[in-house]
């Protein structure tokens, strides 16, 4: 129970920070809407709805990347990450708290992005939305850990997309499949599998990413 309380305290801290600074969320919001508009011009007339569904996923992945690049910024500025690592709480709680906060941010963005997409392009089925939710878990879990790795590197913002995109490919496949396939259940299950495998891997290995 202490573990969950730690996670909650850490996630609350991130939500409070974002509420105060208000820099990441508006940027992500503007980015995703701008991207959707660009896609309108990028799709030639006669391109089918299915292509547009694929582009939704591109927009989501790159918007998530934008947010993830700043995920560990508060910890970097005052050296607070070391403060968290010194504390007697489980290191994986640090990862879980941060991932939970990123999940909330991404969800808030999608509350705007998905309706915008439905208005600009085509309406979304329930399976598509479920796919988005499941993929969010994977994006947040893996992205948060990779962002911590990138924070340890000299090239920070530059390297995060390189680390993240190959790992995001299965998520895109799952998400697009859930949107356009005649059997979305398979893709939703696959997304669940990805989430399970990588969440466990992240949870177990975060300790090593922040330790020397």
């Amino acid at each position, binding site marked *: 129970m202490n573990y969950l309380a730690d996670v909650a305290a850490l996630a609350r801290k991130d939500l409070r920070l974002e509420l105060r600074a208000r820099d990441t969320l508006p940027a992500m919001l503007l980015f995703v809407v701008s991207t959707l508009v660009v896609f309108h011009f990028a799709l030639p007339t006669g391109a089918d709805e299915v292509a547009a569904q694929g582009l939704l996923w591109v927009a989501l992945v790159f918007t998530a990347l934008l947010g993830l690049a700043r995920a560990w910024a508060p910890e970097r500025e005052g050296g607070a990450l070391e403060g968290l690592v010194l504390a007697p709480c489980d290191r994986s709680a640090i990862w879980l708290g941060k991932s939970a906060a990123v999940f909330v941010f991404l969800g808030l963005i999608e509350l705007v992005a998905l309706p915008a997409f439905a208005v600009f392009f085509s309406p979304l089925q329930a399976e598509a939305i479920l796919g988005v939710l499941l993929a969010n878990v994977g994006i947040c879990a893996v992205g948060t850990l990779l962002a911590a790795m990138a924070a340890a590197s000299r090239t920070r913002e530059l390297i995060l997309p390189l*680390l993240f995109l*190959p790992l995001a490919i299965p998520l895109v496949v799952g998400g697009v499949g859930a949107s356009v396939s005649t059997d979305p259940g398979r893709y939703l299950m696959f997304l669940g599998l990805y989430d399970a495998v990588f969440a466990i891997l992240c949870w177990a290995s975060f300790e090593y990413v922040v330790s020397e």
Partner: protein
Amino acid sequence: MSTSSPNSRVPLVSVPALAALSAALVGAGIVLAFWIAPEDADQGISQKIFYFHVPIALSAYACFGWGAWKALRLLWKGGERYDLESYVAIHQGTIFGALTLATGSIWAKASWNHWWVWDSNQLVLFLVLFLFYSAYFMLRFSIEEGPRRANVSAVYALFGVALIPVSFLAIRLAEDFVHPTTFTRDGPQMTGTMFFAFCVCWLAITVLAYTLYRVELLGKRLDANLRELREILTA
């Protein structure tokens, strides 16, 4: 020349012996593949690439797996030597991965007149893995040497082997809606001689991969020892 230090064990087979063995095996493999094994009825001479393309691909997987195993040992037990061994294994794996893409591309061009075919799940998987492991090097060389770099590299290597089956599944699932131009690409039906040639080539490439791994490891350890010595002498 030995580099005995607390970081290395005395190996079973020496590097020169391995080099000789791999040279012999690769030579035998080439002879078997190009002169002795019969030509495939359907694909003709271009099928010969298969004798090398598949073993190279399998060796790449083996290298990535080996690298991940060493990474796990590093995180589990600690010990600097595992970091170097993991890195060298992944380095070899990436090289063999690049070779897989190259030989696969040649095969595709020879068989179907396209330099790239999306319907070969194997090749697409290698493309994704190649991107993933290329990022490994960018990550590794942007972190200062030390336990942080070793740990982060090790975790990333573990993510790699988790990605292999997940990606493979994803690519299979993607066949549903990413419609490539369909080519028949059934694996060649192999006669007895062809199978024997294939096995020799597989053994040859595997031994070659291991030899290259040992050679690079030797070189890197020597380099690390030299730098340490230099540091002590100038301090």
